[in-house]
Each structure stands twice: as structure tokens, then as C-alpha cells.
């Protein structure tokens, strides 16, 4: 190879990009909603909050579900991390982190530990003790070390490895037991804000989104970026895989959510409305992938028909920004966390049930 200066490389890179764009354009491809024209529209949904979790004294920044489908972990600006049984609304564990702005938290697959971090630039794992008197902080294990804030973390298929993303522009994979970095992922040109693991058969890839407006798909084994997408107009705050693993959704400060297909290697849907002006902080799919839930900075949650591109519901409930949103592992509800200090578990309100329970022997109609 001839002497590779940065300019030569950049030219080569740009040429490749243009060439590939031209190839894609030749397909005269359609958008997802055009393919889905023939299927029935969903009509408007009404959503109802089933539980409100109060206990944080400050902005809730992140939450994650336990695999048991009812417990959650949440973290807040004042350094508190709480484990709840969301079903009963009881708090089961609480930890105070030595730092503020705990922007990332995750539940271990076994349900025996939680991971969290934020402005301390670290990700720490706390085994959950059932001894009420035990101080959880005593058994804390420091796993990840970044050079800037921790923005997101998640366990891989077991309690033994954690994937992290950071304001230092990198993601990394860590061995929990030893704290050793197993792989690092360089490619974002600015803070990385979010990540999600692919549900694929081989379980070897993940997607990240950052302040460089890019979403990148990574090979966990080699550390290489295998695909990247750059159509958002501002920071990408949240990324989540479509349940089949063939696509992922993103939520951005540009007030849109987008769907990117990995096989077609491009954006195939954009979820936006003129009346939605504030950024999306977090996104997640319903179990079948038909619905996309988005939490927004204007305090609302918008629910989108993924196939048709239309909005099927808007929820007003939180009294401040929605900062985090996850659908439960079995899809029975979703939980949203907000700067209003609360977490809410919400699902669909059914008029059908209303009718079924109207038995005529009492005059009170109770919504279900």
C-alpha cells in the first residue's frame, strides 16, 4: 500500500460511501409503511398507569427490569439506586452511590445483582443481599473504568460480563470477576449515550448511539464497527433492537424516532409529528414489535405503530421529563422513569373489559 496519509484515507472513505449510496438508490426502495399499506390500522389506544413508584428524592435517570418480570432497579441524580418489587410497590434494597448523576443501571440476568454508574466514570456491581442489616456497599465490586461519565450499562447473557458506554466516546466489554477489559470499541467521534445487545442467535453484536448523531453496530469479538447509520440530526439518546434482531430503533434530540434495517443497511421508517418538538430520551418495543414506545423531554410518552408509522397514543402523566423507558420482559407493561422523581408502570386500558364487567347488578362502572 502506498503511504497512507489522513487525506488519502478520507478521500477513499468518502468515495466508498458515495458509491454505496448510489447502489442503494438504484433499488428505488420503499419505506416500511408502504410495504405495510394493506394491513389494518390500529386505531387509537388508551393507556393506563397501574403502579406509581414513589421513593426517589430526585430525578430518576435510568431503570431496568429483572427477568422475573416484576422487579426493577432504578437510579437517580442524587446517587440513590433502589430495587423495587414494582408489583407490590415495595422497596427491597437501596444503595447510595458515592457519586451523583447515576445515569446507568442494569439488573443482572440471575436477579442476584445490579450494576450502576455515572459521574464516577465507573460501573460497579452490587450483589443483592437478603440480610436487611447488611450494607450493600460493603460487597461492591468496581468493574469498569472509563475516562468520562458512564452513560449506559448492561449485562450480556450472564452475570459475568458487562457492556458499558461512556462520555469518553468508547464502549467496552468487561469481565465482572476480575474487572479486566475484554474488548474496547472505538469509532464514535463524541460521547456515546446508549447501547443495546442484539437478540440474535449468535449473540455477538450490539448497537450504540452517540452525540455524533451516529448509531454503530459492533462485533463484540473483534471490536470492529460492522455497520453505521447517520441520519439523525442530533444526539441519539436511546437505541433498542426490534425483537427479531433484524433492525433497531433510535430516539434522538431531533424529536424523531427512526427504524434502521440491518439487512437493507438503511433507515426504513421515521416516527415524527409536527407537534412533537422536544427530544426523545428513550425507546422500546412491545413484545411483537408492533408498537414503539417513546419517552420525551416534553413530559409525554408517545406510542407509535411501527409498521404504519402513525402515532396510536399519547400519554400525559409525568410532571417532568421522561428520562427512561423499558418494556417488561414478558411485555405485560412498560415502566417509565422521570425527572418528576417517580416511576410508572403502564399498559393498555381496555374498553372491552369494561363492558364484560358491567353485569347490571350495580350502577357503578369501574374502569379497569
Amino acid at each position, binding site marked *: 500500500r502506498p503511504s*497512507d496519509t489522513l487525506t488519502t484515507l478520507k478521500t477513499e472513505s468518502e468515495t*466508498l460511501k458515495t458509491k454505496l449510496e448510489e447502489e442503494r438508490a438504484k433499488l428505488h426502495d420503499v419505506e416500511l409503511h408502504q410495504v405495510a399499506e394493506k394491513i389494518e390500522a390500529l386505531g387509537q389506544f388508551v393507556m393506563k398507569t397501574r403502579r406509581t413508584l414513589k421513593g426517589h428524592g430526585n430525578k430518576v435517570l435510568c431503570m431496568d427490569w429483572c427477568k422475573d418480570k416484576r422487579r426493577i432497579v432504578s437510579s437517580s441524580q442524587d446517587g440513590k439506586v433502589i430495587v423495587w418489587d414494582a408489583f407490590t410497590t415495595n422497596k427491597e434494597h437501596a444503595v447510595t452511590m458515592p457519586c451523583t448523576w447515576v445515569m446507568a443501571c442494569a439488573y443482572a*440476568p440471575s436477579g442476584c445483582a445490579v450494576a450502576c454508574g455515572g459521574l464516577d466514570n465507573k460501573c460497579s456491581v452490587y450483589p443483592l443481599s437478603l440480610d436487611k442489616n447488611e450494607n450493600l456497599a460493603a460487597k461492591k465490586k468496581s468493574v469498569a473504568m472509563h475516562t468520562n461519565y458512564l452513560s449506559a450499562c448492561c449485562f450480556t447473557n450472564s452475570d459475568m460480563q458487562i457492556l458499558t458506554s461512556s462520555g469518553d466516546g468508547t464502549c467496552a466489554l468487561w*469481565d465482572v470477576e476480575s474487572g479486566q477489559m475484554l474488548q474496547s470499541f472505538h469509532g464514535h467521534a463524541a460521547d456515546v449515550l446508549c447501547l443495546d445487545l442484539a437478540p440474535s442467535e449468535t449473540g455477538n453484536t450490539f448497537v450504540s448511539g452517540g452525540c455524533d448523531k451516529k448509531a454503530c453496530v459492533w462485533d463484540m469479538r473483534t471490536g470492529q464497527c460492522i455497520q453505521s447509520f447517520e441520519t439523525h440530526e442530533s444526539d441519539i439518546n436511546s437505541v433498542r433492537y426490534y425483537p427479531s434482531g433484524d433492525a433497531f430503533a433510535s430516539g434522538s434530540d431531533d424529536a424523531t424516532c427512526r427504524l434502521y434495517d440491518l439487512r437493507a443497511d438503511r433507515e426504513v421508517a421515521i416516527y415524527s409529528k409536527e407537534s412533537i418538538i422536544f427530544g426523545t430520551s428513550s425507546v422500546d418495543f412491545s413484545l*411483537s414489535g408492533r408498537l414503539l414506545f417513546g419517552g420525551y423531554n416534553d413530559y409525554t410518552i408517545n406510542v407509535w405503530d411501527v409498521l404504519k408509522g402513525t402515532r396510536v397514543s399519547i400519554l400525559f402523566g409525568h410532571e417532568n421529563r421522561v428520562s427512561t423507558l423499558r418494556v417488561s420482559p*414478558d411485555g405485560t407493561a412498560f415502566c417509565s422513569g422521570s425527572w418528576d422523581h417517580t416511576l410508572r408502570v403502564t*399498559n393498555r386500558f381496555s374498553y372491552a373489559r369494561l363492558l364484560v364487567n358491567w353485569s347490571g347488578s350495580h350502577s357503578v362502572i369501574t374502569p379497569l
Partner: protein
Amino acid sequence: MTINTLSQDGVQRQQMPCLTKMERMIISMQDPDMGIKLRNQRLLITVIPHAMTGLDIVEWLIKKCSISDEEALHVGQLFVKYGYIYPLKEPRNLILKADDSSYRFQTPYYWMSTRWPASELDYAIYLAKKNIRKQGELIEYEKECYNALHKRINHTWDFVVMQAREQLRASKQRRKGDRIVLECQEQAYWLVNRPPVSPEHYKLTTLTKNTIAMLTPWCSLKYIGVSNLNGSYVKYCEQYQPHDPIMQGCLPSNPWITDDIMFWNMNSETYMFIVALPTKLRVERWSFSFMELLNDQMGRKEFLTYLEKEFSAENLCFWQACEDVRHGETAKIPEKVDEVYKQFLAPGASRWVNIDSKTMEKTLEGLKRPHRFVLDDAQMHIYFLMKKDSYPRYLKSELYKNLLARAIVPQETKKSVFPFMRRQRHSSPSPALATQTAEDDGKAKYSNSNSGTASRL
């Protein structure tokens, strides 16, 4: 200070006064009586003479100049930066550490005042020597410099190579200890005078190269459009809709609405509530994809039963063992890989798996240096074998069809209209209760499906 960079006689001006002061101090540091005590330092298998620790340097400066340790560290750091002292262990890291890290004084031959400016020719000779000595020993930025120099001073390149060869030949005749010392000195000199290009530039170069590597495969692939995906999105959504509680509800009821946790108990993976029969939806879902079957602990168990009848259960066990290696604790990988070899791959193993010879050969070779992904190829082979062969046959088998026929469709439980008749929201045993034993033997912890029953509160 003047902005003129040339002095009266046309020679480049430098910070000559500070260099002189530094050199005076360096000389007194090496004074046999009042200077730093030097000793031998082992570097890998060779002993390097006349070395000192970072702490020695700092302490000497504190004493000599009557300054604080912070200031002493700062001053000492300058000596390293300007190449008068160089680190032995991490030569590229030009930092002074006030601990037992080893340092040496640079020979006056390489002092900045005597050899400044560092000539291109000398640098070319240095890189050529490195290149000849060990092919591929030049690191990235050095390779770039080498190529750039080759272009720029191409007319004298023969001279460069000849000088490099000559210097290498001469150095071979020295004692090993001396040779290493001279190499360290030379290396240190060049690290100071030809520092790596700015990290930003290097980073950008690497990133751009990675982008090219990422895009290149797409040039040889044929692009497919959304329209060619055979309506995969619609198909997926429609197939899973009955399983999506928010879209279509769930039976007997959604626990968040009715406060009845029967739905969770019936679909439990942990057998906390003895599951007599699974629901129809659950068993149907195993037919959507091989992943769905394996992801459900009950489905996996049923599949294992089927494989046992077919005398191919070792495939699933092998696959599970590989998962445990991949997702388990790093420290336990060698012993786990060894177990897997003994049980599944060794000739005459009790649960020998049938892998093609090419993959087997590659795997066995890799086992000599076991790492997390060493079993990936073999695991993939067995996975696809099960997916293409055993799985479809399982779905057609009596075992599966029977279970599907017997699977139940739960009765709907309704939420009571009267508030006082509403159900109590019972708590459940925390997952943190179980799996103490699993923790102890370093097994990768998944959801506690293998831990047996725990009593219901």
C-alpha cells in the same frame, strides 16, 4: 524573547540557557559521592547497569534544591521530557514516577544541546535499522514516517540502508549488556525527538481505516431493499401479536391489571409453582424459531428429552457447555475448556460430538491456547446441525404434538369490580435467594431455572 529563530551565525536558536542549567544538574546527579546511588537493574533476562528508581531522583532533588516533593516531581519530569533521563520499563511513556520504576541517565552523545536538531538522515537510519533487525517491528506511526522519509530523501536511500547495515554489524560485536544499553539510549533519544504524531491524528487515521474496512464488504454484496424482505416485519408482528399482552391481552389475565399473578406462575421458568401443563401459546411459540425453543427452559428440557430418544443429546449438552465458556468467568475458562474437550471432543469421549474434520482440527489447534471464543466454530456447527435437522423433526414428533394437544388455554380471571374484593398483591421470593451454590462453582449465572424449587411465600 525575540521571535527570531535564527541566531547571529545562522544556527537555529534554542532554549540554550535552560539546557545548560539542566545539564549542570544532571552532571551533579551523577557525581560519584554526592550523586544518586546507581545499581544494576534486571530488564527481562538482561542486567542493565547504572540504573536508579524514580523515587531516588525525586528524593535527591528534594534534598539538593530544598523543595517540596511536588516541585521535585515536576522538575524531574522535565529531565525526562527533554531526554536527559529515560525510563527502562515503558520507554514510550515519558513520565517520571516517584516509585520503584527504573530510569537511566542518557549518554551525553544524545544530549539535546549536542545533537540538536535531530536530522532526518539519522532518523531514517534508525528506522531502517529497526526494520532490518525485525521485520514488522515498526509501529504504525513509525511506518508512516519511514514511508514518508523514503519518498522525501529517496536519493540517499542507498546510503541510509548501507549505514543501517553497518551499524547493526558493529553492534553485534558488542557484549549483550552493552548492546542493550546502547539500544535503550538510542530509542530514548528518538522518542524525545520524534514523538508519535498527535494522538488525535493517529486516532482519526485509525478510525478512517476502520470505516473503509467496514464499508468495503458491502461493495461485493448485492443490496436488498425493504420490498425484498418478503414482508418480514409484517409477518413477525402478526405471528407474535397473540403473544403481545399490550396488543392482545393475555390469559388468564394481565397481572398488573387484575393483581392476579397466575399468568406469571403458569409461564414460570423457575418451577416455583409446579407447572403441570404449559399454555398452548407457550408451546406454539417454540415452533416460531429454534431460538424461541432454546430460550424457554421448559422447551429446552422437552427438546433434550427428544434428543435423548434420538441418541443425540450430547449435541445440546455440548452447546450448553460452550455457552458457559463464552459467558462465564474469565479465570475459569482454561479449566472449563479442558472439561469440554474431555467430555465431548477427545477421541473416545463419553459424549463425543460429530463435528466435521476441518472444524475439529481448527478447534483442537486452538485448544492449545484456550480463550473465550475458542469453541465458537464447533459450537456454531453443532447449533446449525440441531437447527436444520433435529429441531424440525422435533416439531413433527409425537412428543411435541402431544404436548401441544394437552397444553391448556387458561380461563380468564376478571378483576373484581368491588374494591374490597380486589386481590391482595402478594410479594414473591426474591431471585437473590437462590443460586448461592451456583455462585460458588463459578458457573455462569443465568435466570435460576436450574436451581430447583423454592417455596412460595
